[in-house]
């Protein structure tokens, strides 16, 4: 669905009207029925326009429409009353890499520079290796935000750190400042840029050449009360996601109390001593569910 030719003008205009909010009240139900997790189909949905006409629109275009809902200014505020938090259970990860794949797909990334990396870690020679899925830690004391000269990257009230590709000047100071190497740069023109979609920092697409990108906790999904793509795609329930204020996290299968989970399983944050206060916790790789296998085997199995 990448390089689509422009659609007929009338339908595009209709979509633009939608985006300005005029018809959202009528079409709201229809929009919510479409999950962007599903592969795009040629199915169509009938919608009512402002001037009272019924129009058939392919679902794939509605998906795009959902993406362009939040402007860069709005995206600075955050979702009210929320403090998002993630817990990664290292005991469950077997490097299935589904999170990486689905993240690459939804953020339009090439496999050579993903937002999520599953790292092969080994704390010392005697201890066993383990897999460590690593995203942006969405730090509460974010070094990247501190160094940005133009406020192109910012901390929101809901705890998420986002990047505005329309403001980023590409100095890459944030990349040097991030101790976790979470940030990637659009060194060239990002692949398959569909210019029909309006850019939003909440979706990070279409990302812009010469600017920085990173894992964004998928705020577009969170706005719809859905989980980030990496959480839902994981076959082993490694990633728990939730709200610190509600004190609950879920991996899509089980919902648990955040404080209990961290207490019982000795949750920790990576390199606490840096004082960055990450919003991503890890559960130690003890009693592992899978034997550690090297990368090639892990890939072929999944």
């Amino acid at each position, binding site marked *: 669905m990448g390089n689509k030719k422009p659609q007929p003008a009338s339908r595009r205009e209709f979509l633009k009207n939608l985006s300005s909010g005029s018809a959202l009240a009528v079409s709201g139900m229809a929009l919510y029925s479409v999950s962007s997790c599903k592969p795009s189909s040629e199915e169509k949905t009938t919608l009512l326009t402002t001037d009272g006409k019924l129009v058939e629109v392919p679902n794939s275009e509605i998906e795009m429409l959902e993406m362009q809902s939040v402007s860069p200014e709005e995206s600075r505020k955050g979702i009210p009353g929320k403090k998002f938090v993630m817990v990664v259970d290292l005991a469950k990860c077997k490097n299935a890499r589904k999170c990486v794949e689905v993240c690459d797909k939804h953020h339009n990334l090439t496999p050579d520079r993903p937002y999520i*990396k599953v*790292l092969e870690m080994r704390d010392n020679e005697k201890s066993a290796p383990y897999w460590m899925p690593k995203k942006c830690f969405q730090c509460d004391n974010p070094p990247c935000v*501190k160094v940005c*000269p133009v406020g192109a990257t910012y901390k929101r009230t809901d705890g998420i750190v986002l990047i505005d590709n329309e403001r980023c000047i590409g100095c890459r*100071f944030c990349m040097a400042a991030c101790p976790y*190497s979470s940030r990637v740069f*659009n060194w060239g023109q990002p692949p398959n840029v569909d210019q029909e979609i309006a850019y939003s920092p909440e979706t990070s697409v279409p990302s812009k050449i010469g600017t920085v990108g990173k894992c964004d906790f998928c705020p577009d999904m969170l706005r719809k009360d859905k989980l980030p793509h990496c959480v839902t795609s994981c076959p082993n329930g490694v990633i728990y996601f939730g709200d610190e204020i509600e004190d609950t996290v879920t991996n899509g299968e089980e919902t648990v109390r955040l404080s209990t989970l961290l207490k019982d399983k000795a949750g920790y944050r990576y*390199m606490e001593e840096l004082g960055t206060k990450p919003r991503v916790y890890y559960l130690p790789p003890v009693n592992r569910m899978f034997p550690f296998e090297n990368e090639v085997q892990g890939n072929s199995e999944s």
Partner: protein
Amino acid sequence: MRKYNGNLQKFETRREKDLLGHLITTSLKYKVWIAFLLLIIAFGMFGYYRQIKYGLIVTAMRDYTSWGIYISNFVFFVAISLVGSLFSSILKLNKNEWARPLTRVSEIIAVAAIICAAVIIIVDMGRPDRFFYVIKYLRIQSPIIWDVIIISTYLVISFLLLFISVLPDLALCRDRLIEIPKWKKRLYRITAINWNNDPKQMAMLKKVSTILAISVLPVAFAIHTITSWLFATTWRPGWDSTNLGPYFVSGAFMAGAAVIIVAMYFMRTELKLKAYITESHFDKMGKLLVLLSLVYLYFNINEYLGPAFKMVGVEGEHITELFVGKYAPMYWFVQLGGLILPIILLTFKNLRKPIPIAIISIFVILGAWFKRFLIVIPSLQHPYLPIQGVDESYLHYNPTWEEWAITLSSFAWLLLIITVLIKLFPIIPVQKAENISKKAVEKILQQ
């Protein structure tokens, strides 16, 4: 077109003839040199055109090595710009009269280097089209903003220092030079801003130059300290150090002194200024370079000994890579060839003669440039979390031809600015300060 060969021009004194001669005659060598510089600049422009067209993908920088030779070159330019303050402030306030003839060239180098530093930082930007966002969306807590503020301040002060040092001679050029094209006459008339060696003007000039000499010093220290903070405010191995400010500043003074020595050598031979830039100047500069290098050596030991003793985690990996790893040849070239050997060699009087000291200074400059490479690049290749699951090209950094072309052309720009300014303005004060004041007194007596 009229030919200006200097036949009609008459000078009052030998000094005037020697020091103003190059302003009215243009040698073939000069033209070839300018053409050569323009050629390199054109080559770099082509590289930059490709970078604008395709993005920073044409460079070898990738997600881990996210800063490359543009940034190290930027640090280098900022470093050599400090030499302006060395002469206009430190040596002047300490009443080192011998250094007086070198003040102008040091200010010219400072101004040229600061301009090039500003340009190269724009070249490094992923979105140079958004340059003015730095002003529009300015956030004062970013060290980049501090750097922008201090660099522009230093540029203004350096420019003023250059201007006030050359002002009396601009008036002299206006009054004395006849056989020059109209645009040059206009240039001298405008830039001399009605200067006529009036005692009031003299007093004011002296006051202003003292104020500037004092005020440039903290700014000069700040400019390179803040540049070091671009690194020291992060957690990277080799950057996460409280030593970085003085380490950068001392290295800058050393590099700047070496640049002045090379400039002195070429001015002396090309402009035939042997009577004005004497062997004694080289001797004194040699001693000064040894002193500055020793200070830098001290901060180098501070910078490496602690981490090398402790060998903590990535900091230890970084040190290993510098001392015995991939970057060891460059590291030891820089430390031995660009720092320790020059210190030893320059303690010999015979090696402080113009030719040997110019060669040694070129090694110091090369060492200084590669030192900045070693400060910027290896640190980025040792993050806390291992580099895995990325394209192979992300693991190394070998600058592409576009990067080298742009870097070389930035040097060509630097040399072009310096050459043109030297060609346009008297590089050594034609009127000695005491002569000017004597004339002024005579003038008053006549009235």
